[in-house]
């Protein structure tokens, strides 16, 4: 599976979760992500990190609720737990702690926390499923150089761990205790020296194998100009988004214009890089299906919440069971399709 396919899928789901706090919808998205990860993950270090994401998601939820209970501004409602309000002394910026916990307030915190947890899990799913090494191979040509540095970092890091272990072991041979500042120096210096020597040897090897021959030196004025325009647009556009006094066109439209400039600049910069790819990952039907299933979920939720903002929003005043339109259920169910694709993950 092409790594970008998983990222598109996961970003689609992530967009879906940000559109609503409806716990049923968010719960379904979360479930879809977990099911697909369980079905498609391989035995890789990054796949094992998924557990960490689940724990992080749980922690996010718990923290959100804890913050509500401890420092939340409590509104009216059915009181669940009548805690006293404790004012902090004046020097602690006049914050009141605790206070009566209401069902509505607590549910509000749970809903918001659940949404954030689902977002975290969506990113965890992408991390678990997409092979980062293959993702690096599929980087656009404009990122050739920095990308190469990252490729090197990833491929030598196991050797560095080994080297650190060897140095530690060797230092003990001369009676050097591995503790304390002296031990740290005794460990760090040989590892670093070795790594730096290695970097020179690697550079020599890369250079004599034609690395950097692919890059047209000196750069392109047009590329530089486009990139600067893009960055300027990013700065101005962000400001426009945040400042209510600026005209509306200074926000999103400027950002979009900047994005166009960035893409053009990167394409131009990429054209200056002449290199080919050995056995590139192909984008086939399966990739399209995976990507489309995520995009579908995101699009449907964006469309539904845009057409009727109140439809999915769970009502807390009065408390009511959240609505769950069939079209939303179907679109989220489609996001599980990647779990059913034929063949073991490859």
């Amino acid at each position: 599976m092409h790594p970008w396919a998983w990222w598109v899928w996961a970003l689609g789901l992530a967009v879906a979760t940000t559109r609503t706090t409806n716990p049923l919808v968010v719960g379904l998205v979360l479930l879809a992500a977990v099911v697909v990860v369980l079905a498609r993950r391989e035995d890789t270090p990054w796949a094992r990190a998924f557990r960490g994401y689940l724990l992080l998601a749980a922690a996010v939820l718990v923290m959100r609720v804890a913050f509500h209970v401890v420092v939340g501004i409590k509104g009216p409602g059915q009181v669940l737990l009548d805690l006293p309000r404790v004012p902090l002394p004046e020097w602690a910026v006049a914050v009141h702690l605790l206070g009566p916990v209401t069902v509505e307030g607590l549910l509000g915190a749970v809903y918001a926390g659940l949404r954030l947890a689902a977002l975290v899990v969506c990113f965890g799913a992408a991390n678990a499923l997409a092979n980062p090494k293959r993702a690096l191979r599929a980087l656009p040509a404009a990122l050739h150089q920095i990308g190469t540095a990252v490729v090197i970092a990833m491929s030598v890091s196991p050797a560095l761990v080994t080297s650190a272990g060897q140095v530690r072991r060797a230092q003990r041979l001369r009676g050097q205790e591995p503790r304390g500042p002296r031990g740290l120096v005794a460990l760090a210096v040989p590892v670093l020296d070795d790594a730096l020597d290695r970097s020179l040897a690697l550079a020599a090897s890369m250079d004599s194998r034609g690395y950097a021959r692919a890059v047209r030196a000196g750069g392109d004025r047009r590329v530089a100009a486009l990139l600067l325009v893009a960055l300027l647009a990013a700065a101005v556009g962000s400001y426009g988004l945040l400042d209510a006094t600026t005209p509306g066109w200074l926000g999103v439209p400027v950002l979009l214009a900047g994005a166009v400039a960035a893409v053009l600049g990167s394409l131009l910069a990429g054209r200056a890089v002449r290199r080919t790819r050995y056995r590139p990952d192909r984008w086939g039907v399966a990739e399209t299906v995976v990507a489309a299933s995520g995009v579908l979920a995101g699009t449907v939720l964006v469309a539904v919440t845009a057409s009727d903002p109140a439809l999915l929003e769970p009502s807390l005043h009065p408390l009511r069971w959240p609505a769950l339109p069939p079209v939303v259920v179907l679109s989220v169910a489609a996001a599980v399709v990647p779990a059913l694709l034929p063949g073991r993950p490859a």
Partner: protein
Amino acid sequence: MTWRSHGDGPPVNAARPPRVDALTLRPRTATALVLASLAGLLAFGWPLLVDPGTGLEHGLDAPLVLAVVLTAVVVVLAVALGEGGLDVKAVAMLGLLAAIGSVLRPLSAGTAGVELVFVVVVLGGRALGPGFGFALGATTIFSSALLTGGVGPWLPFQMLGAAWIGLGAGLLPRGIRGRGEVALLVAYGAAAGLAFGVAMNLSFWPFQVGPGTELSYVAGDPLGTNLARFATFTAATSLGWDVGRAVTTAVGLAVLSRPVLRGLRRVATRASFGPPVDARSPRPSTPSSLPTGRVAGR
């Protein structure tokens, strides 16, 4: 250090060690860094700046939109840094030092606040120049995220934060050497480690508490009020970690600065970024194909 005693440049003064720039910032790259940093400041500090009525003050929209913008900014910066060619030795060294950083990161993550990554980033920036420091900060965080599966909306914030630390280390006054240099780096490392934690917390603040608590940001409130709430939030949550990070960075720098800088400078000299062209050869190497790195003082 009279290693460049031949060729077209004057001999390097032994009293003033040569200024190494493994990744030269050309004016346009420097401009790109400044613009990107402005966008980055907005992305970090938006809860303190946002006005009511912009449609962004609620929900997850603002942080996510800004995370997307910041991701794009970081990508564009990477293109800008690479555009026009990097010295192959700088690329290889960037890769190796980033690998050291990414190996240190998971090792230190388990223990509260112990964070040695910035030691590498600060020393790399100090020895090899601001441009290299910037790239080192960003690539270190990125490769460690890839290695540990930690890619998410927080990544561009972390990358930019670490990149700033490396950039700042490269911009510290150059003339200071010996004990003074160690003291300078320790102070800088402690400040940078603390600032990084606070900045990360700032970007995470609206996510973590959401609206409607006494510690939430309130769009349109005076800067001071929001800052006070943020300070309380920080004190209540991550301050312990941030102080731990600052302390470990400072201690790491105090212990490792001298030997590590010695090693880095030694190799930087050996690598002679942007190799000298033989002065006596009839035709110089095609100038257009020369790497862009150079050693000042030529």
